[in-house]
């Protein structure tokens, strides 16, 4: 396995009773790559994300993160894995309504070993680069949908994960806001040397990714590179990281 590969799923199968959700899927995510998983409802794309992210155990097959097998870990081990090596952005409802935005972002750090002061300081440093300056003390109910998703992106990245999983991250947003959110998500993950896996049924969202894989009836159809230029959007990437000076060195040092 090449060190270029960050996450690798091999022969993933998963059934729910008589329903086959995954019928043997192989998928490799490379370092710094943004991959869109597309497919109609019920095709198994969400199950694929759940198996790759350690949310579910596949019935058979293997999942490797940076060369280490992770699907055999117990519930607790997978929890720690999700908290430390992965980041998550969901459609909505992932922010705790009673916490201000900065504390929502700081939460994963506080769950680790960070002191509260350090976690909040670190969390706040993400607000400026993500266009959220001044929103630190606002609570999720006082943010717009797009702002809330950017807070969610900050929370996904604050632990400097290897892979960010996004499940319909723009599903609750209008098109323009969805575009902005996707651009920030892709740029921010790339800038932090993380890979991105997006589950979506929206071709516009998929258009932001380097590669699109399609899932149909539990099987992968294609692994084609994106039709357009490899990644037009990342070319314009400005520093979407609190440590603009040398984010790569820091992220790579994990």
């Amino acid at each position, binding site marked *: 396995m090449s060190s270029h590969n960050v996450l690798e799923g091999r022969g993933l199968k998963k059934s729910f009773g008589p329903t086959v959700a995954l019928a043997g899927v192989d998928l490799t995510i490379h370092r710094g790559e943004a991959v869109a998983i597309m497919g109609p409802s019920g095709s198994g794309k*969400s199950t694929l994300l*759940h198996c790759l*992210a350690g*949310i*579910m155990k596949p019935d058979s097959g293997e999942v490797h993160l940076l060369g280490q097998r992770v699907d055999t870990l117990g519930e*607790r081990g997978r*929890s*720690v*894995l*999700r*908290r*430390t090596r*992965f*980041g*998550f952005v*969901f459609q*909505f*409802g*992932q*922010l*705790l*309504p*009673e*916490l201000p935005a900065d*504390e929502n972002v700081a*939460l*994963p750090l*506080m*769950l680790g070993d960070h*002191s*509260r002061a350090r976690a909040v300081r670190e969390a706040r440093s993400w607000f400026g680069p993500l266009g959220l300056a001044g929103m630190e003390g606002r*609570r*999720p*109910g*006082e943010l717009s949908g797009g702002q809330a998703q950017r807070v969610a992106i900050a929370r*996904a990245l604050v632990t400097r994960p290897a892979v960010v999983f996004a499940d319909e991250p723009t599903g609750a947003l209008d098109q323009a806001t969805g575009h902005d959110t996707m651009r920030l998500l892709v740029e921010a993950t790339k800038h932090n040397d993380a890979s991105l896996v997006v589950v979506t049924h929206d071709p516009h969202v998929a258009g932001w990714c380097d590669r699109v894989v399609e899932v149909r009836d539990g099987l992968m159809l294609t692994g084609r590179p994106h039709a357009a230029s490899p990644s037009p959007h990342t070319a314009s990437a400005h520093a979407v990281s609190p440590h603009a000076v040398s984010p790569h060195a820091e992220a790579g040092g994990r």
Partner: protein
Amino acid sequence: MRNLMALTWRLLRGGGRRGLLGSSLTVAAVAVSTTLLIFAVAVNFAFAGRAGREAWRSPVPAGGTARAIEAVQADLVRGRLVTVVHVAVLVPGIAPPPGLTRLPGPGEVAMSPALAAIANLPELVGRFPRTVAGTVGDAGLIHPGELVAVVGHAPADPVMSGRGTAGHRPGAPATRVAGFEGATTPDAGAYSALAAVASVFMVVPLLVFGGAAARLTVARRDRRLASLRLVGATPGQVVVMTVAEAVITAFGGAVLGLVLYAAASPPLTRVEIAGGPWFVADLWPGVLPLAAVLLAVPLLVGVSAVAGLRRIVVSPLGVAKRETPPAMRFVRVTGLLVALALVPTLGFGARVGVVVAVLGLAFLSLNLVGPWVVALVGRVTVRAARGPASLLAGRRLVDDPRSAWRTVSGVALTGFVAGFVGLLAPSSSLSAQDDVVASWLLRDIRTGTLIVLVVSFLVAIVSAGITAASSVLDRRQTYALLRLAGTPLEVLDRARRLETLVPLTVMGGGSILTGAICATPFAKVGVSSTGAITLLVCVVAGFAGVVGAGALSRPLLRSVATDPAPRPD
């Protein structure tokens, strides 16, 4: 209107398993409230019933023509009180007292069943005439085991001229009466007043709890109702639908509560007050009061639901947009201070009505101050928080102090009761040997106190359990997503526990102190160790119960958080 009702019914039934769970929580909450409310009402009727059945033994001097002479004598046989009523008829045809079909003539006696059963004891042989002329029925007895004899005399007998009556409390000297209607005895009056005070103590936490039950329904429906509002339902339609749903649920709960009460009443009749247990009928206040409770409960729940709905009705977006709540103002505290300032002016001789009013005032002020203090406690917790659990708990307290207050209010108010009676509870050494009724009264205050405490703790514990479960249901999506993102459930669990324990510790202690201050002017008998121990046991049991009830929702948290693909519903 009919369409609206049909839609409400469909929404209620089609809520799915979690919707059903939420509805059952409301039903359970309302059922327990109703059971306890019926009990609180029944207590008053029960004592009034006793007072009425006892009245004929409190002779009222005739204003006009006297038609009979009545004297009442009481003494102890093997530690049990025997009441002997001596009667002599002056004008034939006078109606007999309740429980008797006819008055015993000279040389005859009528006995209560319990007395007839022990009439052969050596102490009693020869005390009464041999000719038994009838039975003193239930209508003339305070309690089923009461020992009562009615002895007939000629008007000229010495006992009928006022001599020879013993000095025991229930006694009355020979009195020329026009009839046997009598009057409420002072003891019966005292018991009725104490029952009224006990009812206040039980009803106030019940109202808080009932309000929580109603808001439970509304909280679950918030999102759905806001969507209905967004698609164009008028405020009126939304109100009708929510209130209809709350009232339907509450009525089901109220009926279940009646059934629960029926199941609980047989053991309750065995509680001994004033020397004896109760007739089964004593605990059934009659059709009208029961119907009133069964109607009032759904009505109150409906009103509470409307209050909870204001936000939605004002703006369709009001619910979706959660804003930082305005800080609770200090004004709330001044109400409590005013009530506390009034208490010392009462003194020992204050009338029962005034005492009840001031206690009620102090209680309601505590209820106003509660959320303010919870918010304060929350801010301190947030400032001091180091780990994620305490930070979450503190933010939750600041975010919705009223909800946290509803969880702890039962124990906080019970703490007030416990502080109040903890000092008042009379020590047994004070019971007067020569005055059996006075010693009963002292013992009964303790029994009554225990019952009120048990009721309050039941409310507190059930309310804590239900509030914890509903808060899990309300946040199920966020909890599930947090778990997906790797948040350990223990952190969420610890946060939930702290969220109850922190205000409970602060406010439980605070209200016990408040209760103790309120009791000071009344506590002439001094602090009793029994009272202090009772207090301690109750505090410990209350904490354990509330924490345990909160822990019961842990499986629920686990089940909602392990939903692999949470979707908003």
